[in-house]
């Protein structure tokens, strides 16, 4: 009930008419009786009693009137206080919503805009007056940040009662510019549990995006610049190890082999950083060519063999005869290289690493099986995350960027392949990588070439 309607239903003060009527009737009856009996003293007594009744009626009526008045006044005050409190609460809510640094878009259950706070206006340039009451799809445009395609699934899901968060969202501002935003959406649920709409909050992340871009461009530039000196170092060491400038003694050979392996490791790291930055910048392009995977794998196995020999590991690859397939040689090489490096790194001395490559009904499958430390259960959910390294891996090998498996998964996700593994802690791990029989799927770089 509103304060106004409560006010209109205010009870009326009773007039006390019943007391007066009773007093008058009693006085009339007594007067008649006494007149009939003709006693004067009786008449006086009767009139006095009637007057008393009248006085009592007046007294009672006055008391009742005061009590009712007090009650009504108290109710009025309470109503006024409630109304003032409601007004104060509303202006406080308005002030809070206006002061929130994030844009807030409130929708009713049919998707019509019922709230658009000041930050939302500041961020978008859209005026609340222009969009309130309109369906959100006509009032405000969210798009996918990279493709520019409409991106409203998260609003629809939220209106359907699901909690949702969306990544890579941009808002089209009133001037047509795309503003990258971090978005969070939640259904509005009333006390009864019924949904009344959705609240979408969004925050301008242009600055964060610029910082990420700058960081990734720096990594890309630094990686290119690092490749040149590393190439020179590796070439000279290779020639020394080939006895091209004189025969080496055993110690010299051992030291130079370590330099060569370190150089290769640094080149791998640079390539991992470079490809990570390409993926993050959406610059990774998959351009499959017709190649023989078995030749590529054999070449990588031979390049990496000294690393296995240093650890006294048996590295086995029985090269199969396979038809040619469409694959991106650099990316496939990186997959094989990262799997082999991991297998060697996390297999204790004296162990084995077996590489097999075969054509199956659903694709070309590479298996890298090691007798290493295995992957603990606690690490399995995080294994393909960027920079993640399992605790037992860190204990065994302090080196490792945590990028190898992340890159393998991202490259395969982008090119239609798949990676999975079987592991037993303390006994070893087998990684499987498959690419479709039709080859790796081509992908263009969204943000252009470097």
């Amino acid at each position: 009930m509103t304060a106004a309607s409560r006010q209109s239903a205010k009870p009326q003060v009773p007039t006390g008419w019943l007391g007066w009527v009773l007093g008058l009737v009693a006085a009339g009856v007594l007067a008649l009786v006494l007149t009939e009996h003709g006693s004067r003293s009786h008449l006086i007594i009767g009139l006095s009693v009637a007057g008393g009744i009248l006085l009592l009626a007046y007294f009672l009526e006055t008391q009742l009137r005061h009590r009712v008045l007090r009650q009504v006044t108290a109710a009025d005050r309470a109503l006024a206080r409630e109304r003032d409190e409601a007004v104060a609460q509303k202006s406080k809510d308005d002030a809070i919503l206006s002061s929130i640094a994030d844009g807030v878009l409130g929708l009713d259950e049919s998707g019509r805009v019922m709230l658009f706070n000041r930050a939302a206006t500041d961020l978008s340039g859209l005026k609340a007056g222009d969009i309130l009451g309109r369906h959100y799809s006509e009032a405000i445009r969210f798009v996918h940040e990279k493709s520019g395609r409409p991106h409203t699934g998260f609003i629809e899901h939220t209106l359907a009662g699901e909690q949702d968060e969306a990544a890579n969202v941009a808002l089209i501002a009133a001037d047509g510019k795309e503003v990258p935003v971090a978005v969070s959406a939640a259904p509005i649920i009333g006390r009864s549990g019924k949904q009344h709409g959705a609240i979408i909050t969004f925050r301008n992340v242009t600055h964060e995006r610029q910082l990420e871009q700058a960081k990734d461009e720096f990594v890309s530039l630094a990686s290119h610049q690092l490749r040149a000196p590393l190439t020179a170092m590796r070439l000279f060491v290779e020639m020394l190890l080939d006895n091209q400038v004189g025969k080496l003694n055993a110690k010299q050979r051992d030291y130079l082999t370590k330099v060569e392996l370190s150089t290769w490791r640094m080149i791998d790291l640079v390539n991992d950083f470079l490809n990570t930055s390409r993926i993050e910048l959406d610059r990774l392009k998959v351009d499959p060519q017709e190649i023989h995977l078995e030749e590529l794998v054999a070449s990588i196995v031979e390049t990496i063999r000294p690393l296995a020999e240093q650890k006294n590991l048996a590295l086995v690859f029985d090269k199969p005869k396979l038809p040619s397939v469409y694959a991106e040689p650099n990316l496939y090489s990186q997959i094989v290289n990262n799997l082999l490096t991991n297998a060697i790194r996390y297999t204790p001395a004296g162990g084995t690493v077996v590489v097999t490559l075969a054509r199956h009904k659903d694709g070309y499958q590479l298996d890298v099986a090691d007798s290493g430390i295995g992957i603990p259960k606690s690490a399995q959910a995080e294994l393909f995350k960027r920079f993640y390294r399992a605790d037992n891996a860190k204990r065994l090998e302090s080196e490792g960027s945590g990028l190898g498996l992340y890159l393998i998964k991202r490259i395969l996700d982008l090119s239609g392949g798949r990676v999975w593994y079987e592991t037993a802690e303390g006994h070893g791990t087998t990684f499987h990588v498959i690419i479709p029989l039709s080859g790796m799927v081509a992908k263009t770089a969204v943000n252009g070439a470097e």
Partner: protein
Amino acid sequence: MDDTATTTTATIVLADDEQFIAIAYKDGLERAGYTVIVAQDGDETLKRVSEALPDLVLLDLIMPKMNGFEVLKSLKADEALAAIPVMVLSNLGQPTDEAEARSYGAVDFIVKSDISLKDLLIRIEQVLAAV
């Protein structure tokens, strides 16, 4: 590697502005029996190729004066030089770079940091054998 030193007499123009890399490749290729002429920028590469009419050009992409793509286009536009095979040997490794280089007529594309000298010599032999 010394086994191959006497099997070839082909001439290669090596275009690379990175001094140490150029020295390493020149050394390695000469030991394998090739005659190597080094050029350190795009202009010099065109000049050396016109003078020597080599059997092969190993071409870097990022070079002063004229980049490798421009050099490649110029070589392929010149009737007298267009038949000379060009292998790109660069530290740019994006497939877009490779696709562009191949579209201008490069017969092979190699990322320098990712290939050993031994494997490079095999690739060179393959290209020369196919001519």
